[in-house]
């Protein structure tokens, strides 16, 4: 073939970003289109479990086998996104012995290393487990940061020549002569990095092939060309605890059930989840009883959760899919496997394949299969390299450094920063400029924030997912304005204001379901701080750009209008 094929990948979740990287590494021209930030969809609202496969070892052994394979790959290529915490399937006295045995056998069948530990041993590993737990199976579960992983995939795709467009919504599929030949895109703020207030616009992007990786939204993209893709979105709730009550993934060893897993995630622990089919992936009820159920049910495993502080809750929708002839009624029965729907074979509409279902843990494998499929279309014989080549940030690195000597950072802050940045730590943190801590809860310094701004423009939520700034216990109460301040110079004040508003909105959203006890005190403190020191309750300058030039210099002590010697510090009484 003469020219390099251009592939449009729709959806900037783990699946889309993984595909974009794979195709770009194989030398194809790639454009990735995402309507929000990277991870805007389900990927940014998942549990963070790097499956060992243990959870599917009884019910869905094909998925389980894929999980353990990919689990090993990701530990290797995404080491700065993965924490190998290990996992336990914990059996309480009332849980079925037969199921415990079946789980153990299932793990053996799928090649998942599993070992039985006594209740006492389990409690020695995790002292906050309930006293009466019977025994447990230990498996190589891990924790994975979806934000970092997707950002690294996108960065790698970009290094290999891909164009990454966020805040760019696909509004139509271009169909010519019964073939899909491209997409129509609406950019929220012009192409390239997002800058608030930049004029947006529509763009027609022609492509030799389109890959639809929009997860729970895949059906909507299908609708644009009258293709029927029956994704069955199913929602699940997750509740974030302020601290890690456990350092190991704790699963309840029971057949499918709600509220049966705790995943340690960075400084927090995340409780989950539920499985309930919804109509619309963007509009579904979020209810307090779901949160209460997480806490009540999981305290049977870890009693201290009952009294512990939660900082927020969030919901995600699974992009479940099953072939139309299966017809499961309960969403938990739907397979976790993924499917390639080639619309030429299936619907007689060439030019696009959709990829639906699957899991975060297997994103790379999904990317590999669909890339093989796309390459096949163009007769390209390029091998997949994503299983061997580390992601940017995951090349050789060590977290054991002298943080003070090397970066001038206090050890817990340096440690967390290096964990997040991986092999990019030196490049980002070694700076001659002052490097104060901007977000104290998560230990994020100015250098890391500035690095994120360079990557993502004026979007503070994009800075947040890269750095974890505002994701700690004050939920942005103490640091949102500091982050906004970091945008200044590069960006003008009205851009900064919009970015700041947007960040506060986002932070507030998730806290609505954590407003009791300590987090309620926190919200009250945040409110009074923001109202009294930042005019957040009623900002007279809200909306319009502030004309700073219209401010005079105040009145000087002679009573005339101020000159250069006007006291800017409020002056002294009598002056």
């Amino acid at each position: 073939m003469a020219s390099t094929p251009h592939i449009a990948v729709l959806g900037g979740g783990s699946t889309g970003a993984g595909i974009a990287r794979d195709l770009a590494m194989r030398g194809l021209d790639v454009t990735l289109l995402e309507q929000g930030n990277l991870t805007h969809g389900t990927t940014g609202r998942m549990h963070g479990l790097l499956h060992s496969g243990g959870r599917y070892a009884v019910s869905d052994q094909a998925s389980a086998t894929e999980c353990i394979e990919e689990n090993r790959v990701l530990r290797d290529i995404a080491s700065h996104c993965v924490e190998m915490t290990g996992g336990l399937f914990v059996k309480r006295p009332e849980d079925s012995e037969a199921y415990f045995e079946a789980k153990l056998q299932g793990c053996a069948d799928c090649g998942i290393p599993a070992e039985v530990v006594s209740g006492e041993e389990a409690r020695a590993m995790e002292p906050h487990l309930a006293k009466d737990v019977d025994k447990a199976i230990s498996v190589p579960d891990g924790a994975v940061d979806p934000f970092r992983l997707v950002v690294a995939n996108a960065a790698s795709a970009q290094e290999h020549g891909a164009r990454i467009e966020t805040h760019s919504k696909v509004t139509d599929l271009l169909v010519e002569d019964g073939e899909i030949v491209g997409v129509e895109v609406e950019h929220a703020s012009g192409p390239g990095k997002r800058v608030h207030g930049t004029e947006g616009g529509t763009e027609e992007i022609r492509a030799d092939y389109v890959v639809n990786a929009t997860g729970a939204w895949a059906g909507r993209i299908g609708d644009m060309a009258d293709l029927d893709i029956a994704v069955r979105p199913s929602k699940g709730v997750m509740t974030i605890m302020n601290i890690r009550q456990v350092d190991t993934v704790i699963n309840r060893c029971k057949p499918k059930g709600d509220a049966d897993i705790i995943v340690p995630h960075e400084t927090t622990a995340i409780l989950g989840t539920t499985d309930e089919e919804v109509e619309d992936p963007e509009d579904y009820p979020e209810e307090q009883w779901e949160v209460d159920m997480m806490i009540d049910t999981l305290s049977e495993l870890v009693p201290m959760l009952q009294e512990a502080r939660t900082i927020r809750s969030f919901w995600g929708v699974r992009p479940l899919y099953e072939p139309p002839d299966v017809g499961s009624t309960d969403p938990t029965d739907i397979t976790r496997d993924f499917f390639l729907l080639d619309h030429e074979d299936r619907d007689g509409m060439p030019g696009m394949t959709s990829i639906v279902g699957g899991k975060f843990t297997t994103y790379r494998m999904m990317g590999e299969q669909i890339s093989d499929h796309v390459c096949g279309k163009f007769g390209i014989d390029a091998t997949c390299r994503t299983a061997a080549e580390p992601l940017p940030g995951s090349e050789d690195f060590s977290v054991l450094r002298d943080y003070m000597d090397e970066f001038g950072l206090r050890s817990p802050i340096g440690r967390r920063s290096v964990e997040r940045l991986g092999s990019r730590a030196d490049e980002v943190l070694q700076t001659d400029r002052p490097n104060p801590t901007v977000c104290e809860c998560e230990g994020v310094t100015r250098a890391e924030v500035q690095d994120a701004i360079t990557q993502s423009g004026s979007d503070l939520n994009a800075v947040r997912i890269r750095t974890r700034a505002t994701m700690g216990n004050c939920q942005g109460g103490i640091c949102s304005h500091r982050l906004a301040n970091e945008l200044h110079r590069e960006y003008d004040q009205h851009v900064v204001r919009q970015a700041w508003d947007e960040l506060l909105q986002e932070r507030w959203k998730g806290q609505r379901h954590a407003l009791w006890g300590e987090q309620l005190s926190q919200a009250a403190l945040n409110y009074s701080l923001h109202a009294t020191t930042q005019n957040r309750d009623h900002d007279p300058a809200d909306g319009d750009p502030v004309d700073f030039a219209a401010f005079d210099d105040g009145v000087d002590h002679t009573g005339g209008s101020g000159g250069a010697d006007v006291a800017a510090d409020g002056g002294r009484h009598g002056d």
Partner: protein
Amino acid sequence: MSDAEESPTFEPAAPNTGDEFEPVDVFPDSDDFDLRPGADSCYKCSTCDTNCPVAEVDDDFPGPKFQGPEQWRLKQTDDDYTVDDSIMSCSNCMRCDNACPSGVPLSQMHNTARGEYVSEQMDTLSVEYVRNRILANYRTSAFLASKVPRLANVAMNFGPARWLMEKTLGVTRERDFPEFATQTFREWWADRGGADASRRNARERRERRGEPTDGEKKVAYFHGCYSNYNTPEVGKAMVRVYEHFGYEVVAPEQRCSGTPMFANGMLADARRHAEVNVSSMSDLVEEGYDAVASCTSCSMALRQEYPELFDIDGIEEVAANTFEALEYLRINEDLTGAVREAEVSGDLAREFAYHAPCHARNQGLDRQAVELFRDLEGAGIEDVGESCSGISGTYGWKEEKYEKSMEIGEEMFEHMAHAEGEVGMTECPTCAMQMEHGSGYEIRHPLELLEAALVE
């Protein structure tokens, strides 16, 4: 048996202002506590930072909010999550504990982190470690010195020796070492006839006071190192005052309370001493004795730091039955009435400039001396304010901290100078050193004044 087995749940009820915080042992039979849950109560108001006397004068010290809830939340239980070395700049004054509106177990977090830092990260051959260990184990030096008190007094403050100590050990030579008494409190106590004599005296007093002679009034005196080796007059005053109210006193076997060891992260040393103290005190508590200390840091250690940091049989019971000497009498006797009727003359008929030690403040005792003695005829008392004296036990003895210690103390020195009296008063022996050092005043203990007022 571990805490974990006793109390399965962590219970800072929400909202938990001031609630008890119960950590769970990470491993049974070790002192590695996981204090991350304590961070749940912090809402980052920074009140602790604004109340920390060290943060005020030391720009390199990140303050209690970072040291405590932030550092613990960022840490993980794996060994390779290290503790920041700035923990060694915290003086363990515990003012942050008191300042926090939300019940964050700050000093417990500092003490535990410091212990971990010293045992896992500090070079045990370093001068700083050796110096800190010597300072922390004051009892050992004092024990040796008390064998030859006159010689020790001269030798310890001998110019060239002090120069050498500063250069090689980093112990400031700006300060004079406290004098050793020629007869220790325990020597006096034994000479006087020990517990038997005290029982006789108490019986006699009870008879005179018209109380039942077989009454159960008995206390176990925790004198601590300082009143044993340096100021036995405080210990004697305690015994005489308590006997005056009809209490039998015993002086059980005891070691250092551990206060200087906590402040230097020497938790293994502290634990060894605590085991002796708890074991002898808990036997007595079981027999109906209450533990009474004349030093506010000692009472603080027994009632708060011990149960927070260690898991020793009987520790909770000892903690619940420990009191400071004035506090105990104020609870159980009509001390105010007695003082109101008394009059003091002679040596102690003076105006006193009183400083409340930080550790007294934490136990809610900061006003007791002033409230009590303002009604005493013949003497006057004035509070010199709520600032920290700045010495915080061993902190002010470190060469590199001396200046900061004096800067923290500045406010107190100023208030002492403005106060009417020219004699100082405080419950804490190291605050007393700092007061004396900064003002040149002689410093007395409230028990001494009480003895002068009440005991003929």
